[in-house]
Structures are given as C-alpha cells and as structure tokens.
C-alpha cells in the first residue's frame, strides 16, 4: 500500500485505477450532459413560439440529432459506466477492475469519438441532420458529407462500450470476494452484469448497421436502396435490434441504483431480492424480441404487427414487479427523505408514468396515432430523464460522501431536486397533450394550435436546465468545501461492502479480500 496516485496530468492519462477512471467517466458524462442540454435549450428556444426565429430547419435537425446522440452515448451511458467503475469493485470486495489497462483505453477513446462527432457541426454541409436513428435514404443518398465522421465516431463509441462491458463481466464473474455468491451481490452489480451482456450482444449490431450505411454511401452497395435490390426498412430492423436493448442498457443500471437507495432510506432490506434479479433478466431477454414495435407504421404484415404487440406488452410484467417491489420495500419502513431518496421516489413515480405510456404505445392500433409524435417524446423522456438521469443524480448524492469524504449541503441538494422535478414535469407533461393533439416530432416549426403548450414546455426546460447548473455547483461545493465525514457508513440504513471501507475511500481498497458471511 505504499504508493498512491501519480503526480500531475500523467495520473489521469495513464491511470489504471478504477476510482480515477470512474471519476473521469463521471466528469466526461457531466460535460456531455451540459453540451447535450445546451442543444436541447436551443431546440426549446426555437420552439418557444411558432415561426422560425433563431435558425434554419436544417440546423434544427442537426440539433435534434446531436442532442440524441450526445445524451445517449455521451451522457447517460458513460455516467453509469463511471458509477460501475467506482462502485462494482467496492461492492463485491475487489481491489480493482479485472482489466485495468483496457479500462483506461475504453475511457480515453470516448473523448476522441466526441471530438470527431462535434467537429462535424463545423464542416461544410453541416453535421448529421437525419435524427439519432439515422434512417436511410436520408442518412445515405441525402446525407451531408460529414456522415462518414459520424459513422467513425459511432464505431469508436461502440468499441469503448464493448470494452467497458467485457471488463465488467470479467470483474463480476472473477473478482468477487470469498463468500460473495452471485445471489448475494447488490442489485447494482446484478443489473450491470446483465447490462454488460446486452452491450456485448448489441453494440456489434450497431457497428454492422453503420458499416452498411458507410458502404451504401461510399462503395456503391445497395443494402438500403430499393433501386439496387435493397430495402430501407431492413435498416430499421437492424437498427432497432440494437436500439431496443439499448434502451434497457440505459435503464437497468438505473434500476440497480434505485434498488440501493430505497432500502437505505427505508431502513428495511430490499423486498423480493431474487424476484428483482429474475425480473431484470426477463426484461433483458424480452428486449431482444420486441424491436419492431418502433416500426408499427412501416407497413409490416398483420401477423408481424400482432406478434410485436404481444411481446412488447409482456415487458410490463417484469417491469411492474420491480416497481411493486420498491413500493413494498418502502411499506412499513422507517423512511427519511434525504436528497438521494427524493430522487429515488421521483424516479419510481415518473418512471411508472413513463411505463404507463409505454404500455399505451405498445398497443399497435393506438400507436398508429402516437407514433412519431410528441407523445412518444414525452414517453421516452419520462423513462430516460426521470428514469436514468434522476437515478444517476440520486446516485451521485448517495455516494459522493464516500468518494470525497465530504457531505453535500442537504438544503441545496433538496433545492436542486425540487427545481429538477418541477422543471422536468413542466417540460414534458404538456408534451403528452401536444402529441395526442397531433404534433409530430422533429418539427422545427408548428401550427398555431400547438403554441400554448410549446411555450409552457420551453419555460419548463429552462427551469430544468438551471437545475443542472445547481447540481454542478453542489458537487463542486461539496468537493471543495463540504463538511468532512469520516464514518465508513455515511447513511444509517446503508448496507454493503462499500460502507465498510474508510471514508473517503482510499486510493486502493480491498487489497486483502474481505470475508463475506
């Protein structure tokens, strides 16, 4: 235990320490969150009132595309990889990740990918403007030249994700402390293990899809061009075979975080641990067989449509089990409402609302009306933002004292929560109304009947945006000047190995494996 972190910039460039790499992932993720949020603010500013005020539709389309890509691949996914890096070794009693050098590589190629992706916005012809789903022929024949950079960037992000996933699988399967059997692992470790398998399975599919687009654009193939014997709908099948599991890649680790926070502040063990594990596995399995519910209007045969409707509706069952288990955990607990708990409770409520609208959009006939409208935008932001982002924010407040040995300011934390909660709902709840009333998504401008709710939504988004600045302030204020804490166990009701190491967690932990009873 003689040596600590290296000095200077080299500590960060060459580090193989899971805590350093975890921190870098989290800071990178937050910076991307700010960038993607800035794009969202521009979108909402343009949509504040009808008419084109700030930008051409061409640039608007670049913003929606980049907002999606940056938030999914730059903000949410790296945030949970960062949490995994920090917490998985601490939670299973391992000294580090199984493959520390690869860990370094998988982080450092990410900023490279995003520099490439962002640079397209300054190129002649502009950046990707075909939506984050890049349906051909809009992304092939009709794409700006920068599409090649977009493809390259996506390849690098995929490689980074696959390496991160392999590392997590290797760590969880090989590095558990003696006595830490699979069914004793914290839910966060379980959800990440399952997520990692999803990543390894579907990131190569995304790589295949972008490669076929690359071939169609540059080398005269016709995978997605009917004139050459291909089919544009084929792309959508391949893309969503990646895209649907991707949604669960984002949300499963969030489930894991919530399953840690709710028992801690209810002072009661997680209800139905084993059913939670099985439900997670069931959701992961189902995610592979439901992809075409994103394509109910492409003209699939009736039987295909029915199959994908039934399979999709099934997902509600294991997801429901998870929500019921969380509520049962709170039931007859001794609940306190610190900031992480507020985020976790908001998660359960808002994610469940997103789940309800999820069942609604799963019904194929009704989806004829919902598809590609603001109703869908509202649905997936309830799942992605109130789900993944709220859970990630809750996780930061929950583990921050363990990471830096300082306590955040509870009042400021609560203020940030309420600002985010209120801002989020003002932004996205009215979008349900807009979609049901007929406003299509990805519209740079809209008819007058949609004006009122768009204005409300824009105002809400500015509040939500401000809440993120406050989060940044809270985190920095805590790290720099928060009240020092030294108790290994920050929270009265917390359970798990991470609460047995000193606070702040030293640079090296569990050099000798702990004994788990």
């Amino acid at each position, binding site marked *: 235990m003689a040596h600590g972190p290296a000095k200077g910039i080299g500590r960060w460039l060459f580090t193989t320490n899971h805590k350093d790499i975890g921190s870098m992932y989290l800071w990178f993720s937050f910076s991307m969150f700010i960038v993607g949020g800035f794009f969202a603010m521009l979108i909402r500013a343009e949509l504040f009132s*009808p008419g*084109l005020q700030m930008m*051409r*539709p*061409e640039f608007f389309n670049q913003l929606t595309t980049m907002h999606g890509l940056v938030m999914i691949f730059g903000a949410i996914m790296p945030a949970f990889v960062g949490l995994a890096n920090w917490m998985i070794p601490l939670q299973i009693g391992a000294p580090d990740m199984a493959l520390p050098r690869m860990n370094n590589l998988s982080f450092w190629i990410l900023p490279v990918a995003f520099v490439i992706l962002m640079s397209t916005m300054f190129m*002649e012809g502009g950046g990707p403007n075909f*939506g984050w789903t890049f*349906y051909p*022929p*809009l992304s092939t024949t*009709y794409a*700006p030249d920068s599409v090649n950079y977009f493809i390259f960037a996506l390849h690098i992000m995929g490689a980074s994700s696959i390496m991160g996933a392999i590392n997590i699988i290797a760590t969880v399967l090989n590095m558990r402390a003696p006595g830490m059997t699979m069914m004793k692992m914290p839910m966060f470790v379980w959800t990440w293990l399952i997520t990692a398998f999803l990543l390894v399975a579907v990131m190569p599919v995304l790589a295949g899809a972008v490669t076929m687009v690359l071939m169609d654009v540059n080398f005269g193939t016709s995978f997605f*061009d009917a*004139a050459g014997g291909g089919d*544009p709908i084929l792309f959508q099948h391949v893309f969503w075979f990646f895209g649907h599991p991707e949604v669960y890649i984002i949300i499963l680790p969030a489930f894991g975080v919530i399953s840690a926070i709710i028992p801690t502040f*209810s002072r*009661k063990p997680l*209800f*139905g641990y084993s059913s939670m594990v099985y439900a997670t596995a069931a959701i992961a399995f189902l995610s592979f067989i439901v992809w075409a519910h994103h394509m109910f209007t492409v*003209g699939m045969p*009736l039987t295909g*449509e029915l199959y994908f409707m039934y399979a999709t*509706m099934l997902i*509600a069952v294991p997801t429901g*089990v998870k929500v*019921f288990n969380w*509520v049962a*955990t*709170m039931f007859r*607990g*001794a*609940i*306190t*409402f610190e900031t992480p708990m*507020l985020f976790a*409770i908001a998660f359960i*409520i808002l994610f*469940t*609302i997103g789940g*309800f609208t999820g*069942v*609604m959009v799963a019904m194929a*006939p*009704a989806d*004829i*009306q919902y598809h*590609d409208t603001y109703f869908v935008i509202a649905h997936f932001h309830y799942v992605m933002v109130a789900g993944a982002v709220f859970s990630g924010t809750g996780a930061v407040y929950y583990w921050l004292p363990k990471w830096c040995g300082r306590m955040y300011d509870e009042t400021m934390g609560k203020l940030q929560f309420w600002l985010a909660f209120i801002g989020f709902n003002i932004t996205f709840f*009215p979008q349900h*109304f807009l979609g*049901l*009333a*007929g406003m*299509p998504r990805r*519209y*740079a401008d*809209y*008819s007058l*009947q949609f004006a009122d*709710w768009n204005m409300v939504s824009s105002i809400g988004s500015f509040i939500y945006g401000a809440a993120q600045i406050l989060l940044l302030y809270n985190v920095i204020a805590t790290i720099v000047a928060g009240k020092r804490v030294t108790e290994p166990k920050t929270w009265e*009701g917390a359970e798990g190995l991470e609460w047995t190491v000193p606070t702040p967690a030293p640079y090296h932990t569990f050099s000798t494996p702990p004994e788990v009873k």
Partner: protein
Amino acid sequence: MLAKAELLFVRVLAPLLLLPLSAASFAEEGGMWREVLNMTPGVTEVSRTIYDLHMAIFWICVVIGVVVFGIMFYSMIAHRKSSGREAANFHESTAVEIAWTVIPALILIVMAVPATKALIHLYDTSEAEMDIKVTGYQWKWQYEYLGEDVQFMSELATPESEIYNNEAKGEFYLANVNNPLVIPVDTKVRFLITSKDVIHAWWMTDFGIKKDAVPGFINETWARVEETGVYRGYCAELCGQGHAFMPIVVQVVEKDEYQTWLQEKKSEAAAIRELTQKTFELDELMTQGEGVYNRSCAACHQANGEGIPPTFPSIKGSDVALGDVNHHLDIVVNGVEGTAMQAFGAQLNEVELAAVITYQRNAWGNDTGDAVQPIDVYNFKHGQ
C-alpha cells in the same frame, strides 16, 4: 422538512395530474380548430376504435396508478422515521410476488383482445371503392386518382413571410396546401402510399391513418370518412429540412360534388395539354416560372437562386443554367441520381417545366435570353 415535502407534492403534483381537466376550458378559449389535450375520436370507424382503445388503456393505467402511488404515498406519510416508526424487517413473500406477476398479465390479456380486433379491422383494405396513390416528395405530396387520369401535387400554401415572422400568421399556419386531396364521403378509399426520395409518413389523425411512405415500396391503408369537411394532417417521418412544411389537407365532399370536381380536374388536364402547343412570350414564361420556382425549387435552391452548397448547389451563374438547354432540361426532368435533386418530369406539366427553366435561365442576372417553350419540353421528354 417532510411536511414541506408533502406540501410541495400536494401543490405541485396534484395540479399536474389535474391539468388535463382544468386545461380543457383554456383550449376552447383559444378557438383553435382542435382541442389540444387529448386524442380526438375522428371521423372514421377506425379512428373511433383507436380512440376508444386509447381511453380504455388510459383509464386502466389511471386505476393502477392510483393503487400503486396510493400505497406509496401512504407509506411515505405513515411510515416516516420522524413519526417514530421502527422499520419492519420482512423482505420476501412468494405469494405476493406471484400475485403481482399474474394480475398484470391478466390485465394485459384483457387489453390485447380489443387491440387485436382493431388491428385486424384496420388492416383490411379489401373491397375498396376507389384507389388513390399517395407519393411523398421532399417536401410535398402527389395524389394520383388511379384509373381516372387525374394527378396533382399538393404543396404548403403558407407563405415564407409568415414562417419568418414578417407577417401575421393565418389560422391554418403550416396546415394549408395549394391543392387539397378531394375524396367522396361514405366511400371506402384505398390509399397506396410510396415515396420518390426519402421516407415520409402520411398521417391523417381524423382518419386514424399513419403509414410510412417508403421509396421503392408501396404500403396500403384505407379510410371510409363519414362526415364531409376539411381535415388536416402532417408528415410524421423525419424527411429533411422541409419535414414540418409538407402538411396534408383532405377535403371530404358529397359523392355528386366529388364527381363534378373530378370532371373539372379532367378538363383542366386537357386544357393544359392544349397549352403545350402554344408559344409563349419570355415575359409570360418568367412570371409563371417565378411562381413555379418558389413553390417547387426555392426550398432547396433558395429564392435568390444561391442554394445551400454543397448539398443544394447555386443556380445563379451556374454552368447548368448558362449552358446547354438540353442538359438543363435533363437535370430538371430526370433529376440527378445519388443526390437530393429530384426528377420533376412527373411532378410538373410541360408548361410549368418550360416556365421554370426559362425563369432559371434568366433570373438573378443569368440573362441568357432563352425562352424555353412547352413544346421543347414535350419533344425532349418524348425524344429521349
């Protein structure tokens, strides 16, 4: 703090949930042509079925939500630590787990039955009384009445000045077109939907129709509209910069009125064929050409002819506009494969093509003096 939190929940969350009710009045005040809160039942059997299904799922979700959130809020209020509660220690119950797996599954099966019926019904395109082919273009729709020799383009009628806020916006801002689709009431119309460039989606909320227009493939769907009137819809699949600017307007009329309209359209087509023989003055061509250009070309090549290079090249001072007429004709009539340049040969008639090419060759200081005549276009099309 908890009391404060509760208060905030009550003050913030409750109004949010009640918003749908309170806002109904607020939408009416605006006098807009559609209530902006919920789906509307529409004017076909299909759209009503979808609406009923939507409301049924909605209320089922509300009931489940009330139960789940009810228990949760009860726990948050009754089982607080600050009220001196000791936590219980139960954490397992197989019976309960089975119950909350089976009950939702049963609810889903109950919901799947009407959904299946509805889907089978809306997929039944058989026994249609007439067929209309709908073709998506960047960024307009073409309607072709199969077997009737009637076809026309339907484009946004909102002027740029309204879009760029130089003029007050009209009631049907971005929801009006130059040539609406006209169909008879109480008639089963089959729509054959395709695209000439990228994927679009033809969405008529009131008919319960949304179908992707996929280049190289033909999708079909249908509607039997029960009430006459003007209905409006939008393109629902991202199709490039003009995505928000290609609305759909369908005028549903009485059957005899439809026949009269169809005859008018046919004689219009005949008149235009006549005009193909006529020789026009340069001025006439320029005036008409400007109109066609602003409708069909300006979205990409811009009103000033300078385009947005490199995707949409400049016409002003370009080799094409200043060079050989036949090459110019070729590009406009047949398009340029592998680029965003569409083939306008089927979209515009001979007179319009002649006018717009003449306009491009003489506007913005191009000044070639060429007056391309409809007959030149006709000969080019038939000679190639």
